[in-house]
């Protein structure tokens, strides 16, 4: 017997829309099985995973804090991936954005002006963009594989951050802790609704980035250029688009958004530089980008859902003592079912039973 995936002649528009919801349903069913095996009450577990984080206003704020870097980075990556450039180094660009933006409040901590924060954000975007243009330069100049070079630059960025907070930028009044000076008030990204929780302007940036990227991809010639070059470099050349310029555009666009996410995180949630500023946002954002099918609007929804599973994992750990690895398994379920549903929209599974006579000779 053979199992084959056969391409469907046409795919259903209805199921294309339903697919993420079916996937979510299947994830919940698989979750129930998993929790039952672990001797936990599945209803309680699902409640603490999906409902509890949404019941209180402060935890909605936490959701926005977790979701906004994921969305910012993933929106940038979606444009990059659509142009067939594989930037796996958003984590490094996030870190470098954080470092570049922090230069102002750390080196000029006595400078007090309303310009400090906007300049920090711009520096953060420039830092991320410059760092992302390294793999772009290597790719266009030396034909280097950008997946490897951008990924390796993540580790360079992590070690550079580690060195800078232990070395030159260590807080002179900080009792030798590996931390920078705490940012003054003018260098801190303000909270949106300080009365109810600590969500900051990062979520506003995420919303703006989503709208801008959606508009560009949907209506602008630039977005068209991204899709054409992503699908066929030859056709792009025929259209008069430059593949090399697109490599730079894609990396700089995604690097700038990752850098903005980095400085927003450092300035808004952490308030200083420290050896580790990201729990892997740059890598999780790759999952978010694909869960959202590389569509900015889809990515916004996917970012919220993935942030929810992070918070839910923490909540379940506290309320019913579920190990935090389970949250990762749960995220894995989600990704698996989304990809499986998408595949089955375009293909059908066929079981082929071959009789002995025809399978007896298997030729070269």
């Amino acid at each position, binding site marked *: 017997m053979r199992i084959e995936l056969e391409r469907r002649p046409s795919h259903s528009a209805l199921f294309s829309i339903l697919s993420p919801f079916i996937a979510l349903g299947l994830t919940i069913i698989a979750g129930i099985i998993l929790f039952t095996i672990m001797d936990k009450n599945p209803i309680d577990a699902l409640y603490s995973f999906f409902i509890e984080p949404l019941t209180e206003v402060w935890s909605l704020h936490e959701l926005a804090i977790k979701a906004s870097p994921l969305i910012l980075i993933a929106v940038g990556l979606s444009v990059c991936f659509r142009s067939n450039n594989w930037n796996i180094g958003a984590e490094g660009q996030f870190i470098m954005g954080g470092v570049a933006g922090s230069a102002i409040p750390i080196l000029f901590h006595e400078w007090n002006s309303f310009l400090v924060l906007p300049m920090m954000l711009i520096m953060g975007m420039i830092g991320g963009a410059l760092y992302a243009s390294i793999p772009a330069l290597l790719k266009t100049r030396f034909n280097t594989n950008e997946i490897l070079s951008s990924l390796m630059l993540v580790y360079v960025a992590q070690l550079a951050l580690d060195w800078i907070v232990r070395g030159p930028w260590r807080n002179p009044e900080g009792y030798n802790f590996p931390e920078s000076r705490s940012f003054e008030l003018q260098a801190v990204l303000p909270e949106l609704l300080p009365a109810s929780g600590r969500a900051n302007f990062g979520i506003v940036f995420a919303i703006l980035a989503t709208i801008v990227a959606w508009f560009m991809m949907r209506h*602008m010639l630039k977005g068209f250029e991204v899709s054409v070059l992503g699908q066929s470099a030859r056709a792009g050349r025929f259209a008069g688009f430059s593949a090399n310029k697109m490599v730079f555009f894609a990396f700089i666009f995604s690097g700038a958004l990752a850098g903005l996410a980095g400085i927003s995180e450092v300035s808004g949630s952490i308030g200083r530089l420290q050896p580790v500023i990201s729990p892997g946002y740059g890598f999780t954002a790759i999952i978010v980008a694909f869960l959202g099918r590389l569509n900015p609007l889809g990515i916004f929804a996917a970012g919220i859902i993935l942030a929810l599973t992070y918070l839910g994992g923490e909540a379940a750990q506290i309320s019913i003592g579920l190990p935090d690895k389970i949250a990762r398994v749960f995220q894995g379920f989600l990704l698996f079912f989304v990809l499986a549903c998408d595949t089955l929209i375009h293909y059908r599974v066929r079981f082929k039973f071959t009789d002995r006579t025809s399978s007896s000779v298997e030729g070269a």
Partner: protein
Amino acid sequence: MTNLETGQDHCLLEVRGITKVFGELRANDAIDLEINSSEIHALLGENGAGKSTLVKMLFGSLEPTSGQILWKGNPVTIASPGQARALGIGMVFQHFSLFEALTVAENIALSMDQNVSIEGIAEQAAVLSREYGLPLDPHAHVADLSVGERQRIEIVRTLLQNPELIILDEPTSVLTPQEADKLFETLEKIRAEGRSVLYISHRLEEVQRICDRATVLRHGKLTGACDPRAETPASLARMMVGSDVKSVSNKGGKISDNILIEANKLSAPARTPFAVELKDIDLTVRAGEIIGIAGVAGNGQSELFDVLSGEETVASADDVRICGSSVGRLGISARRLLGAGFVPEERHGHAAVSSMSLSQNMVLARHRSDADTFLTGGPLKIIRYAAVREASERIIKEMDVRMSGVDPEAESLSGGNLQKYIVGRELDRQPSVLIVNQPTWGVDAGAASRIRQALIDLAESGSAVVVISQDLDEIFEVATSIAVINEGTLSAVEPASQMTLERIGLLMGGIHGEDTDMEASHAH
């Protein structure tokens, strides 16, 4: 249906009501086919008629949905190419599967089911190639061989299996007329030994020349079985196309002195190890002229197209001139703004993005030249899809593009219809210069004649046209002057009325063909 079987022949292969369904498409619908021993049997049909599907089922690479195959009167199931070879069916594919870095003998050894030493194979191959008049040096590296010689390897490789039926898929599509003549001699030797050949083609003259019987397919259905020699090309074409093919009228318009395309000692180095270097190409095309550039595939046609279109720029601006401007350093968009239009050879992934809609493919080629109508919003460059769709519908109507649905994806159109759209996309702009590469490659006869007529009409309206084509009939049909490209060099342009098939053939194979023949015979 007439049965032309004569008394002494017996049926080698019989196919009864074979059907293959892909999804909702019936690629083969109840096809019957009979091949007698020692006959050359033609399988005729346009691209997409179902010839390849049928042959793949005979060679075991596809499983029929229903129907029966009989080999020497016994029903058989052919589940794999290995099984087909074991029965005695050999196949020479249109696209060769050879390793360029290996020698002829090594390539043959790779395809053998049994273990034979390379030396043994080299000897057998040398014997066979002498017997069948296929000059071939078993120790030559494939990379150094011409297309015709590579095809000989495939044929020798098939003959080594001692098959009773040899399937040849469009064998002459890559050959010069002289090389094709040699192939026909070989096929006649094969027939004389009592073997049979299934000869797939859509070239009617060839089929009439060498085939004993023909089976004609159209849209997956059998439309005729006949003796091709008793038919006229027109009647065969009718079976393939379904209606009489409209012939192209070429009145030959006035040619003015206004030079619109000029190449002066144009040279370009090879960009990859497999590309062809262009050497000192001189070309002038005047308004009203159609220059046909003939040549065997892979002699620099696509490289020439790239430097003329500006997809590749050259060192000196003066090397290429379009409408009086030196454009050697300018890209394709700038050349389009001067009034040039371009149709590349490959439809999917070059002239069009397969997964994009027709109107998006309109933006692809015309976003610069039609920026006033197609774009808005200043530097934001917002695409006005309403205007694009309007232009797209105009072309669909003008060129009679058949498709399903409104604004479908390019990949859902048949080759001919997509090509009509791509050519129409350029014609709609009334370009003063048009450069097309293989305009009717893999296109059905109806669409091909429509496209050729459109090229002639454009030239008559005062544009300069360059048609790069491997199809000599096409060149003679449309061109006012003809040149031949061979190994990156362009022969002098001569008026079409003074060119003969023989002369083109010599220029095409030219020095290249003679050279390699000599090498091969020296080797013994």
